[in-house]
């Protein structure tokens, strides 16, 4: 394993989480000692309830993250992973462990994007957005996405997860803004838990696979917001993509028209539903794509709502 343990510990008291805390000092740090991630690592509690750290937190870089996460690391890399720290808290007798992972992404918008990747669960009132389901607490704050997972199912394990979550959230001093493109999703009919923010086509495919998606030319230089709409019992997906300039968006528009709209610009029905595209009013480099809509009327309503929200849209 190429990962490097970079914290040493010594105990001290922290009233915030009501548990023994430990100071983590840097040793062979893959990040600068004064980096935000190191600062969070230094404030991690040594214990939450009866769960105690098994070892010092371990740090991972984009190059070593695959040593730790097998099969899912691409999600974090797709949002510009800068680094992560992991810490396992050993549970008492008959209890599973609690596993903490903190990921620093390229920006707060990207941390939000990781958070939107899995939107199951109940609001947990932590950070800038949080969810709890099946022992797993996730939240984002600033450029950080935090995951805390309890292997056991007891109330005590759940309490430990939330106590740890509150401690980590308090250790993150910054907050960030939501992606501007997400705010452009019209609010009428939008299912809030379906909203995703991303850059990478692989992330799109995880949420909405459709033939020809590669012509959208998603990548690090694009921003995208996806939402599912339920209008009068019929569902559709709206994908907004912001391109780096108008020339970029125009070429995508042309390709989409050829592949999905019979070289026209009117909605067209395919075997899996209606497809359509439009430029956003006043934002020439932002394109809207309607995918798999139930009817032409639904397509026209969604497109008609673009830019029509008095408060700006979803947010």
């Amino acid at each position, binding site marked *: 394993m190429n990962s490097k343990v970079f914290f040493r510990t010594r105990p001290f008291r922290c009233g915030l989480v009501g548990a023994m805390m430990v100071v983590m000092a840097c040793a062979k740090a893959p990040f600068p000692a004064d980096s935000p991630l190191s600062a969070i690592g230094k404030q991690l509690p040594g214990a939450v309830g009866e769960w105690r750290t098994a070892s010092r937190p371990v740090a991972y870089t984009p190059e070593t993250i695959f040593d730790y*996460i*097998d*099969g*899912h690391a*691409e*999600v*974090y890399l797709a949002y510009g992973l800068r680094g992560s720290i992991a810490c396992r808290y050993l549970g008492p007798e008959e209890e*599973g462990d609690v*596993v903490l*992972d903190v*990921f620093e992404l390229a920006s707060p918008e990207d941390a939000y994007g990781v958070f939107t990747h*899995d939107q*199951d669960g109940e609001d947990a009132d932590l950070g800038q957005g949080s969810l709890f*389901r*099946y*022992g*797993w607490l*996730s939240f984002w704050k600033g450029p950080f996405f935090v*995951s805390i*997972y309890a*292997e056991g*199912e007891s109330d005590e394990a759940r309490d430990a997860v939330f106590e740890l979550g509150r401690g980590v959230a308090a250790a993150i001093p910054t907050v960030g803004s939501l992606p501007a493109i997400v705010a452009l999703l019209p609010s009428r009919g939008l299912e809030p838990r379906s909203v995703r923010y991303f850059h990478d*086509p*692989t992330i799109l*495919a*995880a*949420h909405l*696979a459709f*033939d020809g*998606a*590669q012509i959208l030319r998603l990548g690090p230089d694009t921003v995208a917001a996806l939402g599912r709409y339920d209008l009068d019992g019929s569902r559709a997906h709206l994908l907004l993509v912001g391109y780096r300039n108008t020339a970029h968006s125009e070429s995508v528009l042309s390709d989409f028209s050829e592949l999905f709209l019979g070289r026209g610009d009117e909605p067209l029905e395919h075997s899996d539903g209606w497809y359509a595209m439009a430029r956003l009013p006043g934002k020439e480099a932002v394109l809207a794509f309607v995918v798999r809509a139930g009817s032409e009327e639904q397509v026209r309503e969604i497109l008609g709502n673009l830019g029509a929200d008095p408060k700006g849209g979803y947010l």
Partner: protein
Amino acid sequence: MKEKTGRITRRTFVGTAAGAAAASLVGGSRVVGGGESAGAPSSRVVLIRRREVLAEDGSVEPEVLHRMLNEGVAALMQSESPRAGWKQLVCPDDVVGIKSNVWTKLATPPALERAIRKEVEAVGVAAGDVAVDDRGVRSNPVFQRATALINVRPMRTHHWSGLGTCIKNVIMFVDQPSEYHGDACASLGALWQLPQIAGKVRLNILVMLTPQFHGVGPHSFSKRFVWPFCGLILGTEPASVDATGARIIQAQRNLFFGEERPISPPPHHIEIAGSRYGLGATDPDNIELIRLGDA
């Protein structure tokens, strides 16, 4: 020696019963009892279940597992004995790579790897001509000169492909597996046209002892989302094996969540592997399903 797979409680054994209900979903296939013929289906698949393959503490009973393997091979090859079935699969002069899966949360049971190796050697293949590997297959000298492959892995949900399947298990033969992640790994079937794989896979075994039907978190695993199904699925055509396993996973998801909860992303690479790459029937009407044991 037993191998740990997780503690089995009374509740999870009840889950086995739920698994039995889940397995009933595969009833859409053309089902026959052990050894009985059902005409001329395009693909034959064996589902064998033995509750006793897992001890109460969740450990694998190697001898039971070995017997299940042999029963399955005999039924699959329609042979009078397991040995005769193995002899239809491999020859003494074959060089055999056993493509396993080492994912730490849910790996191919070593007892099963040992059982396969033992049967292959019993056919007459030299010990030095058999190897078990996963991530090292590209540099493994036995795999490099392999004339036959046996493909064995546990089934689980997968972040990019919907399901980790036998079709997907050969992805370690390529340098950049992530290149196949597009469109929910739709083109995984193309892997089977690579020269190091094409025509070499003699047997696919989908391990369904404790399959994973859902995943959460960065590590995509939770003990909450595995259950003691106590089964193996065997076939010579990977898409048919995987399609059968996928229906069981989908049924268990529906039972657990109390509603239709489609596998996400959709594991359409299975159907595509069958229709586009000729890796077996995926429609249950075109699969001859042989149920053995508790199945």
